């Protein structure tokens, strides 16, 4: 069982460990994180549709139809912010600082506007989280989306400070790319939330 002395002549230490093809490590980590978030929201949406499928009346009789105008405006705002986020990635990738910083700033502002709108619109609803299964899942879906948008806005604001200080360039923008993937993800979740809670109510 004793090992013989090793002939280490053809051994080497590779210069670089990181596989250069494909996505970078931070971006891969972000994508995997988003995959886990997809499962999280899938559970909440699954709960919504399971509860809806077994209900005799959905929404319950005492719930008035929700006005849809403000959610449509909010959707437009969030979709626009995805476009500006994409602009920010384009800007940093092409070393265009003006486009990068201004697009990022626009994204943060649109995100904040969306957050305020989403929270105030939810408070207008004529029912509560404790008024039955419908209210429970309605507010749960909205709150977890609000939490995720808040996280995104904080992350983007942090990047904005870094961007203003000139921390990113076409050779160093993995954080910006990761943030953009995350931002597009919360945008897509909103489209599902909007469709589920407002369009097919």
């Amino acid at each position, binding site marked *: 069982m004793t*090992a013989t002395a090793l002939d280490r002549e053809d051994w080497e230490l590779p210069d670089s460990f990181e596989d250069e093809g494909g996505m970078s490590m931070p971006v891969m980590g972000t994508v995997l994180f988003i995959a886990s978030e997809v499962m999280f929201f899938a559970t909440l949406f699954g709960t919504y549709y399971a509860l809806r499928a077994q209900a005799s009346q959905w929404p319950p009789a005492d719930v008035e139809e929700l006005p849809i105008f403000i959610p449509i405006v909010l959707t437009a705002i969030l979709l626009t912010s995805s476009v500006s986020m994409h602009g920010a990635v384009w800007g940093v990738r092409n070393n265009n600082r003006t486009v990068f910083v201004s697009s990022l700033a626009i994204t943060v502002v649109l995100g904040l506007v969306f957050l305020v709108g989403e929270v105030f619109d939810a408070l207008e609803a004529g029912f509560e989280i404790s008024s039955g299964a419908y209210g429970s899942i309605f507010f*749960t879906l909205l709150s977890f989306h609000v939490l995720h948008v808040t996280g995104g806005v904080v992350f983007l604001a942090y990047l904005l400070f870094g961007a203003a200080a000139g921390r990113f360039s076409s050779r160093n923008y993995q954080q910006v790319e990761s943030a953009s993937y995350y931002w597009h993800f919360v945008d897509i979740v909103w489209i599902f939330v909007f469709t589920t809670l407002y369009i097919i109510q």
Partner: protein
Amino acid sequence: MATTEVRPEAPATDAGYVTAPYRARWFRWFTTTDHKEIAKMYAVTAFFFLLVGGTLALLIRTQLAAPEQTLRLPGLEVTEQVYNEMFTIHATVMVFLFLTPMLAAFGNYFVPLQIGAADMAFPRVNAFSFWLVPAGGIVLFLSYFAGGPAAAGWTSYSPLAGPQFSPGNGVNLWIGALALLGMSSTLGAINFITTIFKLRAPGMTMLRMPIFCWNMLIQSVLILFSFPVVTAGLLLLWIDRNFGGAFFDPANGGNVILYQHIFWYFGHPEVYILILPLMGAISEIIPVFSRKPLFGYKAFVYATLAIGALGTAVWAHHMFTTGAIDVKFFAATSFLISVPTGVKMFNWTATMYKGKIQWSAAMLFAIGFLSMFLIGGITGIFNATGAVDSALHDTYFVVGHFHYVLVSAALFAMFAALFYWFPKMTGRMLNEKLGIWQVVVLFVGVNLTFFPQFALGLQGMPRRIATYSDGLGWGWLNMLSTFGSYLVSVAILLFIINFFWARKRGAIAGDNPWDAYTLEWATTSPPPYYNFDALPPIRTERPVFDANHPEIAASDEDYDHRVSSSTP
């Protein structure tokens, strides 16, 4: 096949060593991001919780040893409420605070080493994942000081765990602990997947990767897709408990079966999460001590993938008696999953066949794993049969079944891995003689503990009861089971003695004491801060064996032919 660029003229260099930043020793443990240090902290934490959960198990077994008794110890009277708390915390500790972190320990230590990397992909996230484990443990045990811990079982079914039947903070803190531990596992999984995809050394193709890494990869994918689900489900339960939600309250439009679906959508993959890395470790140990390559490497990889895929489609076999699911479908998928599992059994036994078997303690533990896992697996087929399960559901037969897999098999595999890898982690060998004694005591112990539980289950003893009446005749089997559990604790004590003895007096291991095959044995024991000063060329799944035995090493051509153009 990717080609390995070998530069024979490159001189061996020790410039690759990077020293750890200097920190005071006590401070270093809090700030380290080195995967090996983090792995050791995982292992020590997990072992601590094994002792905590084991103590609870001994109390439970002592309470059940004789009929119609109430165990009284100084400061503890096992009332029915206390009994419920004990088995709830026992299960939670063993699943989330012992076994999961112990596997994270093995993964953290050996995945980077086996793929020839310097560290994990995200070292700071790795440290964060670890520190969430003690945080979760503290939150869980805080409930003892906040009005009593959760007592609704580790499944915490609603409405039992709902606001009406579990008032107080116990279940709330239990949910908080599981959320923290789930986050720890999820971040760990992201880290493992990225490490395996991005940091393999040149030449280490996916099909040259050690089986242990394959199992960690598939385990991580399962974690990624199941833990967020239970986190969401537990948050729904938390909303029900604290904000008047009605998710699992039928009177207000909720659905109790929905909770069971969410829980088991996580809960069943969780058992594969707990066993896959151990299967991986066994697949490293059996070939080394049989002096043969693993029989059917590719078949093993495909079997692991199949277990991962099927593992997400069997969850409702925990719910056969609810009458709310399609028993035939879930019985069929549950039977199907025994096929890839059987393939693995065949891989292991065929590897041993005509091998030059070395009866080390690690190998004996590995063979113990095979036999225990076989019993656990076959009784699983009973449970998967809908008609049989409607009689066995929630009896001690089920308790015996999952303890055979998650205690008997898991402990044997864990000790096999510890005996095999301890020399690499510390530079010293564990005592083989004491190890073989431990195999014997553990083997007798687990079988005495859990085999009588099959008989008890067939006689109708329900699980989760604090005591039972004398006339039922369950006394002597329970006494046998309790005696067995004491033997198991003796076996664990033997390991603790062995551990402290070996730390001081164990024989010096050297780089590769077992003449093993994979890259972790190509560096010193324990490895330096950045793991490798040089790597052997990687042409097969056994690069260190090829370097040690050039006369019988497979050439590139042989190997490419064997791996890519023939079925294993």
